[in-house]
């Protein structure tokens, strides 16, 4: 029954091909796409059932489709792998993905290019599934880049618009997403090269079908190897590889300092943001680290750096989210921040916790995005929160669902976010012995609650600020998908509830992580955290829904600007990394390109060296022709000159 696993990615691929080549009508496309993802979901369940039957020592299903690349000793299989880790991811992808597809049927109704949209959505699901199901790094990379491509395509869905709210050029944002991702991808490739060079394989585990051995089991073998960095001394090989992977993660999972593409990615349709830029694609970095955890478990690995990056990202993202005025941008920065949690978790070795948060976040962030989409959809495609206000009456269901999502995100007991986030914080405090990280994460949690409170206050409370906006509730398909997700957001914590540790045990074949022993200290920590969050959330709501509400107007500064000043500005532009990159990379790159093209290439190499040689010869030719002046006596003079030289040489040598 192992073959069943290739059905999982096959369905979305078929959906993509049919939608791309055959289907022409919106409804058919939407239904086809949803059905295909649904079938994929079903196949995942089936595969999980099959997986249960596998022996516990090697709890994985593999299926090699064909040998992908073979050059001498370099061999890579086009092979699929299905183990508990994959299963969890695939479930999230197909499950949440399926819901979002269904939601999109309603959301994308009347869109300019719905068929193309659904085709690309299916392609994305396929690519994402390839990412998590690959049995080797190269195939994983296929998915890795594939999701980047789909992200590019879907962000650029409105490619013919010059600007979508909030003032983003979709085609530019799409290119930016792809290019920034590429930076990470390149590091990933480098990691691949290093791994193959040192392990001689790219397979995670032994592939019996082709006789390729796996590298994850050999991690310990190369633990002591060093890479010569010349003037910079030496670097342990493992450090190098894991560092490169970390860079890859920062790109794909929108970590500091490469997160800048994610806020701009909000130029895509909202379901895209929900699926790709919240629930799935951006989590692939976390998956990558978890998959390669044996490398990160080595003493010399870059895991501490992972933690640092994660914590920084969590904090930076959260603070930036505070200052956003666009409903989706808040969520985008929030995603950055939450991804930071996950990365921090895997950075300190709490892989299950990371995965746990990945799953719950997938549920509630998807919910939030969809609800935000519902808001946007409901008020006629406005995204500026300053134009909203008081929408809880017009969009009651959406408001409730949004509120659930916000509570989950803020980590309020007993919503899903509470459990997963607190597990990370607890891990940081007790196991990783990193109180600084824990404090930062707690602080971030408070900030998270604050901006969610702020957002809810701004959007749903207060008075309607724009008379032109009349909200209406979304259709059935959209509403019920949101409800389904909301259920998940509420009870999602169950999957790894303290004491039950379902996820922990399910992932045990992959992650031999001890179950967390809960202590009183943990309870205290959780209580403090939750109280802090609740307080901050209330503060946010209070500030924006009541106290300062009259000051919120389009064209006016945000109320908090008065207190925070330039700091606010910094937060508003996502701590200015875009600004910095513009100056440090983009503009110099362009300027250098102009310089290289016009000065170096055209002038120096082509004009001076190449054509210059020709011109020099021409000048020489003119000189020569001047000598050829037409006067016989000059010719005779030259002649005599030659005679003297020849005779002198002959006579004097002889």
């Amino acid at each position, binding site marked *: 029954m192992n073959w069943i696993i290739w059905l999982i990615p096959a369905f979305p691929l078929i959906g993509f091909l049919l939608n*791309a080549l055959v289907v022409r009508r919106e409804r058919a496309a939407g239904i086809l796409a949803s059905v295909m993802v649904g079938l994929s979901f079903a196949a995942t369940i089936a595969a999980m059932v099959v997986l249960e039957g596998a022996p516990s020592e090697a709890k994985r299903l593999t299926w090699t489709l064909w040998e992908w690349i073979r050059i001498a000793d370099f061999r890579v299989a086009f092979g699929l792998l299905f183990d508990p880790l994959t299963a969890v991811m695939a479930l999230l992808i197909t499950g949440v993905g399926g819901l979002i597809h269904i939601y999109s049927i309603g959301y994308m109704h009347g869109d300019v290019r719905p068929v193309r949209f659904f085709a690309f959505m299916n392609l994305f699901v396929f690519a994402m599934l390839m990412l998590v199901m690959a049995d080797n790094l190269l195939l994983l990379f296929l998915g890795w880049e594939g999701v980047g*491509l789909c992200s590019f395509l879907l962000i650029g869905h409105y490619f013919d618009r010059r600007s979508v709210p909030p003032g983003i050029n979709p085609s530019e944002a799409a*290119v930016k997403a792809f290019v920034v991702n*590429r930076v990470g*991808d390149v590091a990933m490739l480098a990691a691949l090269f290093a791994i193959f060079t040192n392990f001689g394989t790219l397979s995670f585990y032994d592939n019996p079908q082709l006789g390729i051995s796996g590298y994850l089991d050999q991690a310990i073998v190369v633990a002591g190897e060093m890479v010569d960095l010349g003037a910079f001394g030496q670097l342990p090989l493992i450090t190098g590889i894991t560092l490169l992977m970390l860079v890859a993660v920062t790109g794909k999972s929108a970590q500091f300092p490469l997160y800048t593409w994610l806020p701009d990615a909000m130029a895509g349709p909202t379901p895209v943001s929900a699926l790709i830029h919240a629930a799935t694609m951006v989590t692939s970095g976390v998956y990558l680290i978890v998959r390669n955890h044996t490398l990160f478990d080595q003493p010399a690995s870059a895991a501490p750096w992972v933690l640092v990056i994660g914590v920084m990202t969590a904090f930076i993202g959260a603070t930036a989210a505070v200052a956003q005025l666009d409903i989706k941008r808040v969520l985008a920065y929030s995603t950055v921040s939450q991804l930071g949690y996950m990365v921090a978790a895997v950075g300190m070795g709490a892989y299950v916790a990371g995965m746990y948060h990945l799953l719950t976040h997938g549920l509630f962030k998807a919910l939030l995005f969809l609800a935000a989409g519902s808001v946007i959809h409901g008020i006629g495609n406005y995204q500026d929160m300053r134009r909203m206000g008081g929408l809880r009456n017009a969009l009651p269901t959406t408001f409730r669902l949004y509120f659930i999502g916000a509570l989950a995100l803020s980590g309020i007991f007993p919503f899903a976010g509470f459990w997963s986030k607190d597990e990370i914080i607890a891990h940081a405090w007790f196991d990783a012995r990193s109180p600084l990280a824990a404090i930062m994460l707690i602080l971030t949690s408070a900030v998270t609650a604050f901006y969610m409170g702020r957002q809810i206050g701004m959007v749903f409370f207060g008075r309607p600020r724009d008379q032109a906006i009349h909200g209406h509730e979304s259709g059935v398909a959209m509403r019920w998908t949101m409800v389904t997700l909301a259920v998940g957001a509420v009870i999602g914590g169950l999957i790894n509830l303290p004491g039950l540790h379902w996820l922990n045990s399910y992932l045990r074949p992959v992650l031999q992580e001890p179950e967390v022993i809960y202590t009183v200290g943990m309870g205290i920590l959780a209580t403090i955290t939750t109280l802090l969050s609740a307080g901050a959330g209330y503060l946010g709501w209070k500030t924006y829904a009541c106290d300062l509400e009259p000051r919120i107007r389009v064209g006016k500064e945000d109320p908090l600007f008065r207190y925070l000043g330039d700091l606010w500005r910094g937060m508003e532009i996502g701590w200015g990394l875009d600004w910095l990159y513009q100056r440090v990379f983009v503009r110099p790159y362009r300027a250098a390109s102009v310089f*290289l093209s016009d000065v170096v290439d055209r002038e120096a190499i082509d004009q001076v060296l*190449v054509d210059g040689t020709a011109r020099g010869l021409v000048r020489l030719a003119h000189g020569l022709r001047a000598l050829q002046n037409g006067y016989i006596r000059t010719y005779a003079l030259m002649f005599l000159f030659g005679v003297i030289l020849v005779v002198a040489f002959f006579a004097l040598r002889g």
Partner: protein
Amino acid sequence: MNVAPLLSFMIWLPALGALVVLALPRERVAAQRIVSMSAALLALAAALGVVFFFDPARAGFQLVESIAWIPSWGISYTVSVDGISLWLVVLTAFLTPVALAASWGTVERQERTFHALVLLLASGLFGVFTAQDMLLFYVFFEFTLVPTALLIGIWGGAERRYAAIKFFAYTFTGSVFLLLGIIGLYLLHGQATGVYTFDIATILASLQLGTLQLDPAAERLMFGLFFIGFAVKTPIWPFHTWMTTAHAAAPSSGAIDIVGLLIKIGAYGLIRYTIQLFPATAAWAAPAISVLAVIGILYAAWIAYQQTDMKRLLAYASVSHLGLIVLGMFALNPQGIAGSVAHMVNSALTTGALFLVVGMLVARRGSRELKSYGGLWKSTPVLGSLTLILVLGSIGLPGLNGFVSEFAVLQGAWRSPGLGWRYALPALLGAVLAAVYLLHMYRMAFLGDAPPELAQAPDVRPRELALLVIMATPVVLFGLYPNLLFGPMQQSATQIAGGTLQYLASR
């Protein structure tokens, strides 16, 4: 096993077709098209026959045909294929009918001559890729200059005459050194063994058996002479300006041949001669050459971004690809060499097809300036999608052809003891830059809002669709099943790489 003079058939058929086409009356365009296309297709059939009879399990030259040409000089007409040349031959056979079909309706004057020149060029290229006699190789190598220069000069764009002459003079300058190298090797071999021959297989055997032992200085001199010739032809940075000029001026349908094939003969020569014949020196020179290659990758990619002329942009893209190709072969391991050859094929396919796209765009708008375009994906969705596949293939998206060869090349470079990550890592940055310039181009032309002139631009016509699909099919196919490409070249690449192993091991 020599079934029939399949290779000779393949080489000379296009030339014959060219003569027939020229003999046809000027007005009978349809007949000219039929004749030229059938010659090209027959050559393609012959090439496929070659593939059929080729035994991928063997390393050496296969399907050898040999006739004495100038016996007193040891010059013979010897043609054969090995794993390295096989796909380049097929590529030539594949692109020739495409180039011909692409010219239908776009070449306005002297169509007869155009067909004849394309066919002559095809003959020359077949000859280059199959000749296993150094002098025969040189004859074909130089012969390709003539039709190419004429193609550029007669049907090219604004600077066509300048470009044609520059192309000819520049690459000719390079190849005269090649001639010297050939003569020198011939004489050294003759003096050492008493056998005066230009046959590569014989010389190779002598080198491997040690009957011909070159002292390092002589070997480096030979290597240098061969290298200069091929480096200019390839072109390796900084010898690339002829190419960007020529490509900018080339006609779209002619350009596909030039991009696709002509520049590959330099790279092919680098493998066949500099590396295969002088492995020790190749290993000695590999770091220096690789530096040039890496510079070329980054430099060209960087410049490409700034180009407003789509053809120039693609020309720089080609230069960048060629840097990768050269880096791969000088990794001197099977991955690098096989990847390098595969990248020749892949880059020819994607870049060539993109040139076709540019031709189609020009047909719609009459301009090659990127600024004149925009939003085309809306009005021409099929063209936009197919172009996107080609662009992505060129960027090196996994699952498409560019990736596998790029990966193989870089993997080869990374693990090569002579190069290592110091070379591969900067080269890898080229992948970012490639995404930057190609997506920039795609964005400028196909995304964004459309100028009013393009709002009603017609989508692909059946002929265009057929051309693009034909070009895009291998792009996907090779991406998913690259062993089709790598399979036959396995043995040859391993064998060639084996030559350097001894040297590297001793270091």
